């Protein structure tokens, strides 16, 4: 197409194709939907086969929920799931508390030397590859001889959860209007009252978002737990890994599906709690 063609309004000429708007490239929509299929089909296949009656995963013999019943009744799976929950809840609680305090100090503590370095340190777990964190933590625990069982796992999880909890809290704080806190002090509230009555309630959605991210991340972690956890302290993902190693059964699919649906529910809940409500952002 030459430049000349473009000058002529195509629609004005009978018989010529109406020129599409620039962004509307043909086939894009198809591609986008194929992409969605690419993202979700594997998950769908996994979930579908978890309802397979037979015990060979890939030969469909009939519908059954037996594998779920079996997985839920399995004492080892229940223990692993319990461990996962204990670790995730503890790591979430500790990391969210630390992250909230740190975010407050960084966003409201004025300028000071080393601020950038501290920010970098807190986000360090995001930058170091997981496998490196995993073996480094393993080396560390063994070199100082720390053997707290599940405690080791909780420590490791808390560490890498901190930046995930930190990010949304900090974002929320940065977006918050500091004149609100000034207004509170202006109206005779002490620093503590200002924090309790103004800062914290307004920060809460950020804290909630941070906690949810930390929880999901901890529930999903596999490599670090694999390296750090002792024999009795396996979490659900590590248990699933060992099951896969022993051979793929519909039971693995069933446990995996439960874990999947659990994270999908968490992420969706997170999305809807953090979505800006309309008319919220007047200032």
């Amino acid at each position, binding site marked *: 197409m030459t430049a000349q063609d473009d000058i002529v309004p195509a629609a004005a000429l009978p018989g010529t194709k109406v020129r599409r708007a620039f962004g509307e490239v043909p086939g*894009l929509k198809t591609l986008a939907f194929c992409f969605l299929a690419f993202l979700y089909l594997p998950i769908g296949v996994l979930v579908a086969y978890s309802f397979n009656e037979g015990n060979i995963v890939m030969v469909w013999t009939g519908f059954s929920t037996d594998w779920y019943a079996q997985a839920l009744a399995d004492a080892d799976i229940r223990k692993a799931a319990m461990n996962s929950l204990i670790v995730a809840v503890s790591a979430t609680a500790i990391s969210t508390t630390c992250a909230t305090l740190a975010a407050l100090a960084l966003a409201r*503590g004025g300028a000071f030397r080393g601020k950038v370095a501290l920010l970098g340190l807190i986000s360090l777990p995001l930058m170091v590859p997981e496998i490196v964190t995993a073996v480094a933590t393993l080396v560390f625990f063994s070199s100082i001889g720390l053997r707290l069982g599940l405690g080791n796992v909780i*420590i490791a999880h808390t560490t890498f959860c901190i930046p995930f909890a930190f990010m949304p809290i900090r974002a929320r704080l940065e977006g918050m209007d500091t004149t609100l806190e000034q207004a509170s002090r202006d109206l005779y509230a002490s620093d503590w009252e200002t924090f309790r009555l103004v800062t914290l309630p307004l920060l809460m959605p950020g804290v909630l978002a941070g906690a949810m991210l930390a929880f999901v991340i901890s529930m*999903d972690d*596999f490599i670090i737990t694999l390296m750090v956890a002792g024999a009795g302290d396996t979490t659900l993902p590590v248990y699933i890994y060992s099951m896969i190693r022993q051979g*793929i059964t519909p039971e693995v699919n069933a446990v995996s599906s439960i874990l999947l649906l659990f994270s999908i529910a968490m992420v969706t809940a997170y999305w809807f709690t953090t979505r800006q409500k309309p008319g919220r952002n007047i200032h």
Partner: protein
Amino acid sequence: MANLPENATLRRSLALGPAVLIVGAFMLVPVAIMGVYSFLEAKSFGGVTWSFSGDAYVQLFYERLLDDSLRLSSGYLIIIARSFFLALVATVSCLIVGFPVAWFIARRPLGQRNMWILLITIPFWTNQLVRTFAWIIILGRNGVIEAPFRWAGLLGEGETLGLMYSDFAIAVGLTYTFIPLMVLPIYASLEKLDFSLVEAGADLYSSRWETFSRIVIPLSKPGIVAGCLLVFIPSLGAFIQPDLLGGGKKLMLGTLVQFQFSTARNWPFGSAIAMILLAFVIAFLMLYARAARGAKAMEMRR
């Protein structure tokens, strides 16, 4: 707030303390110790003996023969090369698919856009292990892809297409896992892109391709660069995908490190590889930081 009173400084330190201590003690210190370990000698069943040795790094390039002489060996270099190659393949395929998808989403009306972003975000936050495992069911022997061939009699008993345990399977796994990290930043920069600029380009008689290459690409470059980095770096150090989809033969850096700590029990060598992986990652992050600073300086000058 330039001169905070004394107790405010104290309060700030107390508030920063826990997070900094935890990350410092359980992240920074462990990595440092691992760095030290990489220069020690291995004990036969894991652990180290405290004597200095550069063997771990030498071992990467040379193998020690019986008479204690060294011979150049390519075994580990091939693993490094494969890691880079597969990370690159994953990045390029993510970009090829991710850019048009991001463009498509950015052109949707606002409500739809949010829905799309949610749909792309969900898989990313769901369990990586499980999502990778799903690909075994698809690519594996008797898997979803082989089933129709078998049914049609094109594939006999005991025969396989050989999709699993290959570089191809690993690349698919990496692409599948990390593609949301490509779409999201590109979308973020395309969303900010003022489409009247695109129209201005068209208005000034540039062809579609010219508009795309002269206006759209430069303006969405920060997103593209960020996306490539976000896919490349975790791919380089990936463990789950090569482990589940590559089997024992197609090692990458991540699986090699894990192998040294679990099966081979050569901690100094494992530490050395982990340090090298970390060095690569830091190098890429620094390059990125420099590029980002440069881009910012450009913005300021305008």
